[in-house]
């Protein structure tokens, strides 16, 4: 079976700085591919390259064998790539349900209709509610997202990604800033839905990473220094020194 998402030799240079340099990776449905590495290793830039928010300097991206290099972020989304952000990136001053409605509606053909009211299209809202139920946000559906706790806002972040009905999920530190209990909710959720998606997970919480990941890629200074199954990464000297290096630097 060919991978759902595949990147070959991806590079991104910002005025001389090599943020990402010749990274190749792939992910199949039902698989969680974790990307780890110290801060500044280029993980978020890599996700931006995969989601179309940044154009690569070099290299290619494929979705289900189709070349999608250089596609913009809305095109990537329509190709089935959903993503969540490291810094919560949702619609402030709207309710949780309204947030989710915008995401769900992106898969419909009604978005250019400007005369009928949204209440004529109840499907959107019912789909939103089923997604909120799945991520455990149904009870706060009518609250403004700005009034939610940080953890709940992170859940909205993931709900938005799921609501576009993607095949590929790019998750940028979904557990960032979460308490232990909130983290466990998200970890359980990801475990719950893992079979439906090809997931690329960037995360600092190593316990969570090793609990979830089927495959790991370790980055340092924009380059891949190691990749393989969890046991191999755990044992890798290179990876240990990369992380020790970071600790020494701090």
């Amino acid at each position: 079976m060919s991978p759902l998402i595949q990147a070959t030799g991806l590079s991104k240079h910002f005025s001389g700085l090599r943020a990402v340099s010749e990274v190749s990776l792939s992910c199949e449905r039902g698989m969680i591919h974790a990307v780890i590495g110290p801060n500044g290793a280029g993980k978020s830039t890599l996700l931006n390259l995969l989601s179309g928010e940044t154009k690569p300097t070099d290299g290619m991206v494929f979705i289900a064998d189709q070349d999608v290099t250089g596609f913009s972020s809305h095109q990537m989304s329509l190709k089935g790539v959903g993503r969540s952000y490291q810094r919560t990136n949702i619609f402030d001053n709207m309710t949780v349900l309204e947030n989710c409605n915008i995401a769900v509606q992106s898969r419909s053909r009604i978005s250019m209709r400007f005369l009928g009211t949204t209440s004529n299209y109840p499907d959107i809202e019912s789909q939103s509610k089923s997604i909120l139920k799945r991520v455990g946000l149904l009870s706060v559906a009518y609250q403004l997202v700005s009034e939610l706790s940080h953890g709940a806002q992170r859940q909205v972040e993931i709900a938005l990604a799921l609501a576009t009905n993607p095949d590929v999920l790019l998750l940028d530190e979904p557990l960032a800033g979460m308490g232990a209990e909130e983290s466990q909710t998200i970890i359980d959720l990801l475990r719950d839905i893992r079979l439906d998606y090809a997931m690329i997970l960037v995360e600092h919480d190593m316990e969570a990473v090793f609990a979830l990941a089927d495959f790991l890629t370790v980055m340092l200074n924009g380059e891949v220094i190691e990749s393989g199954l969890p046991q191999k990464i755990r044992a890798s000297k290179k990876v240990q020194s990369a992380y020790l290096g970071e600790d020494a630097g701090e």
Partner: protein
Amino acid sequence: MGKNFKSLVIGFVLLSLMLFPFFGERFYIQFASKILVMIIFVSSLNLLVGFTGLVSLGHAAFFGFAGYVLAILMQVDSSTHFVTALLISISCVGLLGLVFGVLVLRTKGIFFIMSTLALGEMLFYFLHDTDFAGGSDGIYIYSRPNLSIFDFWDVDLANAVHFYYVALVFVCLTLIFIGRIIQSPFGRVISGIRVNEHRTKALGYNTYKFKLVCFVIASMIAAVSGFLAAVQFGVVNPEMVGWHVSGHALMMVILGGKGAILGPVLGTTTLMITEEIFQMLTKHWQLLTGLVIVLVALFFPNGLAGIRIFKKGGSM
């Protein structure tokens, strides 16, 4: 405020507006008509600024251009029907809106503001420097388009009272139309763009396309007001497309509270009445207007609507 109470207030205001010509003097009826026409224009700008988050300083281009289309139409055929003329005017402006929109929407933030202003001024120079548009004097519209409805009701647009009712009808239509847009699936997308364009795009929306459609719709609504203004005054000139018209309209959007459907009604009425009073006080009334604009923008960025909420003790 309960929903019933709000409907009651709106109903009362509407009734008074309908009865107004029976009591008001001619001068006041004409002034009220001027306000009504402006409300349409400010509402169209509010659709961009308040609902989509696009700060345009070139919106007057559409207002003035609609008037010029009418003026030229009436020169060609003075018996053109009102509806025909209006539709032609709106279509031409919509086309201009499409061309301008394609260009300016490629930019963001301060560049958007600067390029809208520059394109608006380009139209100003075009109308100002070319002969067919009458140069700096503009064009006089000697005969108004005829507005006969089913051949038995002749509306005389040169008559102040008749015009007032026509303007009132168009204000209501505009507000209802914009209200529908906001509540539509399309409205959901543009509110997403206003709050967080980046995420809206990442969710699969081609935000450029949505902004362009919105920009064209707004330009066409502005065309209605420019058309009516030309009908009312019987003359068009390059000042109509000047950026001071856009600047003032922007102020009215803020004064009424941006992003509220009835905000332009409040903002336009307040600023126009205030300016009328200033003009009675001094020849240099723009000084006072300028001060009001600076103070409101600095201290009441949420406009009159913001003050009301503040008084209720609610948080912004």
